[in-house]
């Protein structure tokens, strides 16, 4: 077997919108390695992941197992790498909850993506994912969210919300919700929208004396703020927003 065969290709659903060329030279075993997290029964875990190194492939892959009534909360900013990628696979036991607040940012020729899989394997678990993507230049933002609900996992409530904001023509976002549901008493809500900064809001703010740069900052801040709102831990919430705003400041120069 040659190494090339082991590298992901665009035919893999989870790499569909990725920048495959950015994987060149990456050892194939990279794609078999995981950071493992196990949250014990009734325990709470939370973390902030920031991917912001500049070059090449910047990837984190997390595998999270939630035991009964455990709660995990992940705040994530993907704003680095030619290809910046966060993969999260979560397995939920009875009554567990997983919360994701994710932001992707990027311009130039970059691709920044969040790829998740929620495995609802027991009844009564909930998951909620909110991802906001802001891109400019020829930047691409992707959110691929797969939700598997096994036959036994009744009363699952799994929600996904994705919104993309394109600051310039040429930028793009992709969102693919993928639901595999084998139980009949479940709720799986998902929504996705893409837009630009609201023209009438921009003029309204300008008419009050705000220069274009400030207007963009305030509107983008409001937009990505959505991704932090459901995070229970205030420090995590603020840290995520602050990191994202710092990144956007760099863009403004």
């Amino acid at each position, binding site marked *: 077997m040659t190494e090339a065969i082991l590298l992901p290709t665009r035919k893999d659903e989870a790499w569909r919108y990725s920048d495959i060329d950015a994987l060149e030279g990456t050892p194939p075993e990279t794609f078999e390695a995981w950071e493992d997290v196990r949250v014990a029964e009734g325990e709470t875990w939370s973390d902030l992941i920031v991917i912001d190194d500049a070059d090449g492939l910047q990837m984190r892959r997390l595998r999270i197992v939630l035991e009964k009534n455990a709660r995990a909360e992940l705040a994530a900013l993907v704003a680095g790498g030619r290809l910046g990628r966060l993969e999260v696979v979560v397995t939920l036991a009875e009554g567990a909850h997983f919360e994701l607040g994710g932001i992707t940012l990027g311009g130039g020729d970059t691709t920044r993506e969040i790829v998740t899989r929620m495995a609802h394997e027991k009844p009564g678990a909930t998951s909620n994912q909110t991802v906001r993507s802001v891109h400019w230049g020829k930047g691409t933002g992707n959110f691929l969210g797969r939700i598997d609900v096994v036959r036994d996992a009744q009363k699952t409530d799994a929600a996904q919300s994705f919104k993309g904001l394109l600051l310039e023509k040429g930028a793009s976002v992709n969102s693919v919700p993928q639901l595999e549901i084998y139980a009949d008493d479940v709720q799986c809500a998902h929504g996705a929208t893409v837009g630009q900064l*609201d*023209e*009438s*809001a921009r*003029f*309204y*703010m*300008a*008419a*009050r*004396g*705000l*220069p*274009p740069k*400030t207007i963009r900052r*305030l*509107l983008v*801040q*409001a*937009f990505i*703020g*959505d991704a932090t709102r459901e995070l229970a831990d205030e420090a995590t919430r603020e840290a995520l927003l602050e990191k994202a705003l710092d990144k956007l400041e760099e863009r403004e120069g």
Partner: protein
Amino acid sequence: MLQIDNLHAEIDGTKILNGLTLSVNAGEIHAIMGPNGAGKSTLAYVLGGRPGYEVTEGKVFFRGEDLLAMDPHERAAAGLFLGFQYPVEIPGVSNIQFLREALNAQRAARGEEAMTGGDFLKLAKEKARLLKLDMEMLKRNVNVGFSGGEKKRAEMVQMGILDPQFAVLDETDSGLDIDALRVVGDGINAIMRQSDKGVLLITHYQRLLEVVQPTHVSILSKGRIVRTGGAELATDLEREGYDAVMAEA
């Protein structure tokens, strides 16, 4: 203060203003009335510099400067306030943050020092009280979930905080009940009826003019001023209708 000379403007190639000439001096409150489609809101947007409203001919001077050469935010910093007929909702941005940043951006552009958070809150409270708007509303996101009347009062609170030299108020009276109309009218008088300030008050109806007594009234029709008079012109209009009054012109 404001001199509009032979202004022509169009939207998407449709001519709306056709040689509008008008001047408003300091100390004047000049009401613009006119039927639907006369170009009232277009005039307001052109003065504010809204993208898409293209001036094809004419000049506008504001306090001696070429207004049309300025960007919208520069016009605000120069002392021009545009009161919107339909104030825009901005989810995720609080009134307090929005107005403080706006005020300090204007002050910075004029070479003035930024206002501190404490001073700003004091000012905001004072203006909210003047317009009988609950201070809690200012902590909420800009215009989000506000009723029509609350939006208009919030608009006037903004005007009070920003303290402009000149206000262009586009149908500030629409959507207000009788009581709110009086509050808003009193607010306009308190903030803008001063010897060094001017107002262009765009309205459909005479009722606001009973509270905010104009020094001049002009009728706008088909993109130009067809008649100018004193406060009595508004009363004539209310009694006889646009057609009759314009026929006399």
